[in-house]
């Protein structure tokens, strides 16, 4: 956390000093990295392999799809067996003409979940189901190079797992960061 704050302190002054633009209409960017999620209702922490692909429709608006592949719960004796999710939505970019690109997004999605219900001291595998989700994302991109950037996202997801065995709140706050790449798919920089 300390290093992250130091990183932010160094990047924010760059915003006012820079006037070149790395975000433009037709830019396609993507990233793949690991994410950590915390489900406060279940008191468990989960690990995901996550990736996203984003197209800048203009300097301020982008359309983005995300996927979360559930790896495992980091909490011992977690009841969550599976929680793969996909999201699709749009993002608003507050500083379109700068390297530092803070963003806010709204992405509805669905997840494929499976939860074990403790029964007579044993874990019984419960039904899998598809859960509708809503999520809000805050974060930023930092475009340090023509082809690469650094990305950080904090996502709050709201959802509920409903089966004949149980109903479980699967709302989660997740965090991911990593290196991404970006290319111009329109070939004409605007």
């Amino acid at each position: 956390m300390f290093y992250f704050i130091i990183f932010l302190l160094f990047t924010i002054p760059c915003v006012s000093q820079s006037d070149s633009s790395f975000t433009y209409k037709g830019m396609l960017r993507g990233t793949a990295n690991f994410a950590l999620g915390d489900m406060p209702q279940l008191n468990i922490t989960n690990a995901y392999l996550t990736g996203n692909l984003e197209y800048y429709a203009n300097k301020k608006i982008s359309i983005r799809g995300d996927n979360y592949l559930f790896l495992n719960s980091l909490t011992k004796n977690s009841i969550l067996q599976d929680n793969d999710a996909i999201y699709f939505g749009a993002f608003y970019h507050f500083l379109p003409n700068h390297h530092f690109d803070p963003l806010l997004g709204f992405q509805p999605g669905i997840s494929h979940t499976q939860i074990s219900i403790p029964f007579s001291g044993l874990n019984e595998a419960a039904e899998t189901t598809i859960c509708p989700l809503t999520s809000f994302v805050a974060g930023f991109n930092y475009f340090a190079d023509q082809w690469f950037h650094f990305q950080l996202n904090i996502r709050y997801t709201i959802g509920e797992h409903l089966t004949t065995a149980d109903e479980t709140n699967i709302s989660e706050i997740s965090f991911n960061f990593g290196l991404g790449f970006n290319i111009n798919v329109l070939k004409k920089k605007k």
Partner: protein
Amino acid sequence: MQVFREIALFLAMTFGLLKLAYRQIIRHCEERSNLLTVRISLLIAAFYLLPFTLSAQEKKDSNYGGQLSFGMRNTFSSFTDAQSIGMGAGGEFRIRLARQINTEWFADYLATDIQGMGYRHDMHIGWSVLFYFSKHPLTTGKISTYFLAGHCFDYTEVVSEWPGVSKGTRWSSAVQCGFGIHYNLTKNFDLSLLSQYMVHLGTDINSSIQVDPATGYSYMDITRQSGFSLEGHLLTTLSINYQVGRLWGKR
């Protein structure tokens, strides 16, 4: 003033037609099949379109027609038998017909917990006509309010966690109307909030809490109501939409 006259005319036609249709539905549907219900609801929806179609013929509106938008949405369902709020996710697209007339085509998947004893799944696929009150709707940085009415087909599944109770399912048709707002962050991108009441035209699936006399445990029982019912729920939708281009008209 012309806008208000159009709204008054539209509301008068709508309520008159709904009243007429409601009487016809009550008279016929108790003894006939659901197919008739579907046909009648389609007829109601077609009548809804009538005043909009007349407006769409105005020449001055030709520059606005054909705008195509795609969006994603979250819908929250309330005032159902479940007595709790359900949440759904889905998508939509819009085709604008005229300056003050837009159409919205949507699909939703909703899940609702029923008091911790069962759940309900709803799938909606349908369309609505949007009538903007402002003469210049969808302007960047301004809120556009609109009235909406439309029709949809839906599939409902109600499941009890109690082992002895079999699930209830139904296909039905529905009509919906409500009010909403768009807020355009840019020329092509808007955030929308919509609140509409959806009335299902068909048989109802009732869920009720019972007590098992043998064990004393409470459970959810499911009964399918025979005949016709006007069961409904309030849907609140938050969506984002991006205009990708035009199907016709000036670019």
